[in-house]
């Protein structure tokens, strides 16, 4: 924040003129980019449909209400599958994420030059790609079904859990580890006594947090054929059975809320 000499008087400005120009230029470019983006979206849009949207929305609403409540009897198995996809997927993911995290953390990796970059690559690849895409891929490979869903969720969650976990490992108190090493403990004992207790709360929190996210994600995996309640959603959408769609959406909402509540409770109990 420079103080400028101007006509023999000191005036205070937040920025110099050059900085100001630079800022304005930056904003200009930003706005220009946004306008270009918007134009491309607009070109690709059939505006006739958009103007018609309120009528269509109203139409869908009248068709979708009231939900077809009796359809819920057919949703028991899909809900159970959804729960399993999320839970088993999370369990598999955390089992695999632990070694990856230890290889990725700077203070525990066996080799900074070779193993750490590989672990980081695994993490970023797993994280960058949505579970729906992993599901598509797995369905192409092992065929549709719950199993593909479990594996898709697991693969997607490894990166997420391993990233948070390795950050937790890098933040541990090093003197506690030193104290255990100083007793003459072996490498694995140092791990079990010096490191694991320190990251255990973070670990539990991460697992529950990811489980909550996975419940949400597993509700839609069925859209691509990977099992769970999404299959029913997709089937109902295909035949335009809107009362069923609205019931399924309500069930998904309820599942999401319950899982959020459960994960908040469990995290509260652990930490």
């Amino acid at each position, binding site marked *: 924040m420079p103080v400028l000499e101007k006509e023999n008087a000191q005036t205070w400005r937040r920025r110099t003129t050059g900085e100001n120009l630079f800022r304005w230029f930056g904003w200009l470019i930003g706005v220009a980019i946004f306008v270009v983006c918007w134009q491309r979206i607009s070109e690709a849009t059939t505006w006739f449909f958009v103007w018609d949207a309120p009528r269509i929305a109203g139409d869908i609403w009248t068709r979708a209400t009231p939900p077809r409540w009796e359809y819920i009897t057919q949703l028991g198995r899909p809900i159970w599958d959804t729960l399993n996809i999320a839970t088993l997927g999370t369990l598999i993911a955390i089992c695999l994420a632990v070694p990856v995290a230890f290889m990725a953390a700077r203070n525990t990796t066996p080799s900074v030059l070779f193993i750490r970059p590989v672990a980081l690559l695994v993490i970023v690849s797993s994280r960058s790609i949505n579970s729906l895409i992993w599901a598509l891929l797995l369905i192409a490979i092992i065929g549709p079904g719950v199993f593909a869903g479990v594996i898709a969720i697991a693969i997607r969650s490894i990166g997420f859990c391993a990233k948070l976990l390795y950050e937790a490992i890098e933040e541990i*108190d090093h003197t506690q580890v030193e*104290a255990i090493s*100083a*007793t*003459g*403990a*072996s490498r694995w004992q140092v791990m079990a006594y010096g490191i694991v207790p*320190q990251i255990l709360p973070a670990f539990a929190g991460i697992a529950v947090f990811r489980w909550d996210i996975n419940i949400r994600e597993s509700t839609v995996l069925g859209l691509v054929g990977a099992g769970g309640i999404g299959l029913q959603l997709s089937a109902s959408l295909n035949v335009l059975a809107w009362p069923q769609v609205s019931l399924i959406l309500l069930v998904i909402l309820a599942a999401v809320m319950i899982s959020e509540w459960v994960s908040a409770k469990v995290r509260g109990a652990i930490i």
Partner: protein
Amino acid sequence: MLRLQKLTKTYRTGDQALKEIDLEVGKGQVLALIGPSGAGKSTLIRCVNRLVQPTSGAVWLEDTDLTKLGSGALRRARREMGMIFQEYALVERLTVMENVLSGRLGYVGFWRSFLRWYPQSDIDEAFRLLDRVGLLHMADKRADELSGGQRQRVGICRALIQDPKLLLVDEPTASLDPKTSRQIMRLITELCRERRLAAIINIHDVALAQMFVPRVVGLRFGEIVYDGLPTGLTPEKLTDIYGEEDWEATIKKVEDEDEVEVEAAE
């Protein structure tokens, strides 16, 4: 029993923390290492159990040169040396008992330690030590529930259950209030006497060192500048170690405090 020969440590940053230190500690001898902060006290004791890798020189513990050991032999050698830390360095999320028993890690296998199946003799010894430091009733509390003085007592138990020949003590009182500091120092020196342990105690509080320890070594910029009786620490010697300062007050205060304590004891 412990002999340092031309021990030198140069950190990767270029700091020469120890310059060819020669030092000998006899069996059962308790020694205070004093010096201003940055003098290399922590570096010295960490070079002994090789939490810090010495650059050159030798560390003889009885007949083994610790600097030449491979990792397995080093682990066995570390069992002989108990270490007590400034910030206690307890594993905070483990219970007091687990922290004490972790001192036995060098003696039990991985699965036993992982499942907490320690030999009965270890468990008894842990109870005895906890009783000795007055924390038996805290055995199943988590370490982060304890006060500073209590934590340091647990740290002492962890070091002693190793059944060491040598204690390496790094500023045991720096995070404690004056009264607790004295209690802890008294406890450490008493235990050393009971068990005929040699000990190197890093301490920056000259008064405390003089009060409890029969031999004082002064370190400055990585070199030994004083080695002798605590009574020999004249103001001139202290200036050698710490630099210019009005020492009369410090020394006087020590004597005053001593009197106060004697009175309180009576």
